[in-house]
């Protein structure tokens, strides 16, 4: 059977790995790496430092009732307005202070006049300072969230045309030049108290 033999030989010459699917494999790998690669985004607590004051210039006066003082020592003990407290009390106390609207004579007159001041010891670990600051931030975030959800401030003043499920949602929907109306209505005044001079060691 010469015909069959010929055919076999011919077939053997043609044997090759099919390469047509290589491009697909490459595509799959490419997509796999695209999906799994995460470029780590920097996250953190955003703050704005107070601008430098001239030597003679005094810091702007703040009424005692508008100032909400938080002191954190090196052991992580917290003094809120002179009373011993704990870190997780800060959040609710901040909300109370900011949303007082002149009701309680010891607390703030209005949200935009309210100032939260955080002061630390020289030896306070950074971790505890961030925790305290975080609690203050979360207090403000809770306030902003409720404004975003209802579209109005706690006094009934209309701030937004529509409502959002959260403040975060509202923020992401903002154009870069657009003003953040919630923060305009309730500014976040956080003061990082200057360390006492001559407080060394």
């Amino acid at each position, binding site marked *: 059977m010469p015909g069959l033999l010929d055919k076999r030989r011919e077939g053997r010459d043609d044997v090759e790995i099919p*390469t047509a699917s*290589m*491009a697909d494999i*490459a*595509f799959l*790998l*490419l997509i796999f*790496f695209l999906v799994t*690669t995460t*470029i780590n*985004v*920097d*996250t*953190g*607590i*955003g*703050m*704005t*430092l*107070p*601008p*430098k004051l001239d030597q003679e210039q005094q810091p702007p006066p703040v009424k005692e009732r508008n100032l909400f003082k938080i002191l954190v020592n*090196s052991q992580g003990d917290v003094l809120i307005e002179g009373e011993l407290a704990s870190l997780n009390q800060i959040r609710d106390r901040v909300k109370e202070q900011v949303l007082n609207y002149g009701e309680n004579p010891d607390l703030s007159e209005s949200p935009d006049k309210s100032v939260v001041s955080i002061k*630390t*010891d*020289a*030896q*306070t*670990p*950074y*971790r505890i*300072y*961030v*925790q305290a*600051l*975080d609690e203050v*931030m*979360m207090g*403000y*975030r809770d306030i902003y969230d409720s404004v975003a959800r209802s579209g109005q401030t706690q006094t009934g003043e209309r701030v937004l045309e529509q409502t959002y499920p959260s403040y975060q949602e509202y923020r992401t929907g903002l154009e870069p030049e657009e003003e953040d109306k919630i923060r305009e209505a309730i500014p976040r005044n956080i003061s*990082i108290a*200057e*360390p006492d001079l001559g407080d060394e060691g």
Partner: protein
Amino acid sequence: MPSSHFQKRSANTEPGFTTASLPDIVFMLLIFFMVSTVLRETDLKVQTQLPSAEALTKIDQKRLISAVHIGPIKQGEKKGQTAVQIDDALIENTSAIRNIMYGKLQEQPKLIVSMKVDRESQMKIVNEVQQELREAGTLRINYSSTREGPR
């Protein structure tokens, strides 16, 4: 007839090489570079274990960020001492920070200083750096921290 034989052969063979596998080669190169490329990062001379926090914001524009690292020195004679690192260099004297940061602010007016501070660092040095940042006028800062894990 040698000439006619030659002619016949050349007529049957197609000139040039197959280009079908070129995309594959390109893909392979692409994947090789994707896998082997490491995004440039400054090599840290100080150890910074970031604190964790809840109220986090993301900084989307990476080019606005300039990092200040504060933490204990990893190795060498002064190992364990808290130091400040900006870019690739340790800062010996904190009063040098204002010039460095002022220069950076001229280049990028919307500069955000990312404070990458070790969790156990003392507030004394953080405050010192912050006073320097105020002198330089770089007022937008960000306390870099990680998402709070389950505790």
